[in-house]
């Protein structure tokens, strides 16, 4: 157990996967010599060489398209997209090829590519660096989409994603890269939670807060605040957007009767909408109040000096909780 920032935990997870399997390769812009703009791949090119850690030309379609080709040849490429807003040149390769090749070949072809991408805002950056595009990918059949919120999960989930036979979009909460957490690296593979299992991080009986990625900490902060006022909120970290572990959420909601989903992405057509729909289908008679959603607005991500008003805050979460409790 060591206190490790999320960025370093991912680095350690990549290193472990590369040591275990010589077919694991890293590809991306500035990931070698520089170690990535967030230093997530720091030192890996030095230790594994340029054949396994590729500083690629500046072309995302190229990164994902060639990764797919290498996967056909038995490699397990892990692509880094430098920032969330720069994935779109690769969108065609991801959606039309990577996601569909298994189905198109009736299972004869396997493309175990991982695409790592920092996501979410709150870092005071310029345009295209703070977006939360997870549902564009979650809406694409054939892809798995995961989003760890803690260093421990980041360490294990990146390895599980690499081991997956399916392509995985691995989102990294960029504003949390330097937040430290305990990482238990000593677990045997069987002891690690399955990649797509949600996790209850804080038990509570009054309402359930569902969050993922960067909003998990927010949900925990809100729960701590609520506890001071005597309200006990249960916090569930989804960890995976596709597939969605509805059972874990439903089990919680059956006990609390109330649900608030917190995400950074726009609420409109967002992951929270899917959670809300599934929960009303599976536990309609346990619900005491309509499901509330807190998240970004249906707007282009605003300029840095306004972003604090766009992002969900503890107060907005508590407002929603209050409304759920009042219903």
């Amino acid at each position: 157990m060591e206190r490790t920032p999320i960025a370093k935990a991912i680095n350690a997870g990549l290193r472990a996967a590369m040591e275990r399997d010589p077919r694991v390769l890293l590809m991306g812009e500035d990931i070698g010599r520089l170690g990535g703009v967030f230093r997530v791949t720091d030192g890996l090119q030095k230790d594994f060489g340029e054949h396994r850690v590729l500083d690629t030309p500046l072309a995302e379609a190229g990164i994902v398209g060639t990764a797919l080709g290498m996967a056909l040849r038995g490699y397990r490429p892990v692509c880094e997209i430098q920032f969330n807003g720069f994935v779109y040149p690769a969108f065609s390769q991801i959606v039309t090829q990577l996601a569909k090749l298994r189905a198109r070949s009736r299972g004869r072809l396997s493309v175990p590519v991982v695409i790592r991408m920092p996501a979410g805002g709150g870092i005071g950056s310029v345009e295209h660096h703070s977006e939360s595009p997870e549902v564009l990918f979650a809406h694409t059949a054939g892809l798995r989409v995961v989003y760890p919120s803690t260093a421990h999960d980041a360490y294990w989930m990146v390895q599980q994603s690499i081991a997956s036979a399916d392509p995985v979009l691995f989102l990294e909460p960029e504003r949390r890269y330097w937040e430290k957490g305990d990482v238990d690296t000593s677990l045997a593979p069987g002891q690690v939670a399955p990649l797509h299992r949600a996790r209850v991080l804080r038990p509570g009986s009054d309402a359930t807060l569902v969050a993922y990625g960067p909003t998990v900490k927010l949900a925990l902060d809100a729960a701590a605040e609520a506890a001071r006022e005597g309200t006990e909120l249960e916090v569930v970290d989804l960890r995976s957007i596709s597939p969605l572990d509805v059972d874990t959420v439903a089990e919680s909601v059956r006990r609390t009767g109330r649900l608030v989903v917190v995400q950074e992405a726009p609420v409109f057509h967002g992951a929270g909408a899917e959670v809300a729909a599934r929960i009303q289908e599976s536990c309609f008679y346990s619900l005491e109040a309509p499901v509330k959603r807190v998240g970004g607005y249906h707007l282009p991500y605003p300029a840095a000096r306004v972003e604090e008003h766009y992002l969900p805050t503890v107060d907005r979460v508590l407002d929603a909780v209050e409304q759920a409790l009042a219903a």
Partner: protein
Amino acid sequence: MTDAAVGPARARGEEMVQLLDATGARREHPGYDVHLEPDEALDVLRELVLLRRLDAEAEALQRQGQLGLWAGSRGQEAAQVGAARALRRQDHVFPSYRDHGFLLARGVDPLHVLSLFRGVDHGGWDPVAHGVHPYTLVIAAQMLPAVGYAMGVQRDGAVGTGDPGRDTAVLVCFGDGATSQGEAAEALNWAAVYNAPVVFLCQNNQWAISEPVRQQSPVPLHRRAEGAGMPGVRVDGNDVLAVLAVVRAAAERARSGGGPTFVEAYTYRMGAHTTADDPTRYRDAAEVDAWRERDPIDRFRTHLRALGVLDDAAERAIQQEADAFAERLRAGVPQMPDPHPASMFEHAYAEPHPQVLAERDEFLAAWARHEQDEQLGSTVGGDR
């Protein structure tokens, strides 16, 4: 002195257009020439100096926490000032994100650039009034729109009329790294297929963040033009006269209906990629020092001194203007008001969108509660 960049380039049979060598001595070129009247020459120097000053001030403002980020143009002044000088009022520029020289040249208040890097907006200038598109941060994403704009120019009949006030060129800026994007290849192809009036200005500053240009392409970048079917020229990007001459010819060709040209301005990014970058992790100080010898402003200054166009009084006048310019930036940036939070709900759509309107109402209601709570000295229900 031998020219560090010209040497190896020559060895590969690559010519680079130069009208001033690194020492500031005037060179002849069979294909290109340019003559500046003394006043205009001093004005070019003035623009070079102001652009460098903008960079220095912005870097300092970033360090003081007044800007979130800064992407500097230091070292690339001649490429930008020279190219901008080749344009006419009706021409249109599609910049990337460190093309501040084009904005100054086209009369944009530099505070409108700094507001972007402060995080106040995405660039405050009027793209139509100044003929400068908003900065594009997605690498190469401005290239196809620039070609499309040029196709619009063609359809307006604003090409090849011979009227110097009407014929229009479109200049698009991009970096060496950008040439790797698929869209860059598409843009060259489209421009060539439609014979669009475009000048592709590639500022090859040798680096794309930490990646040297050889990791983007094994062939000199201007040779991309050949495959696309347009002329490609490599110009010394630290030679403001050569850039002016080459881009002027390319823009004239575009305006006259001759079609697109690819210009590779061979230059160097003297500073970090942005203030968030640490170039000591990937490049040697010796390389930077070698390029410092090729400084675009010193070179032009030496030339003007030799011509007798620049004397101490003129130099002082420029420095005084630069000081006043800097003072204005230092005073203006900290005073920039933050936008009203609700302003983010503006302009996402031209026509009403019910969900956005509902979200805005909800936001405003929460905001009003927050303001009220503030007055009551409480933070309950507020944003922070």
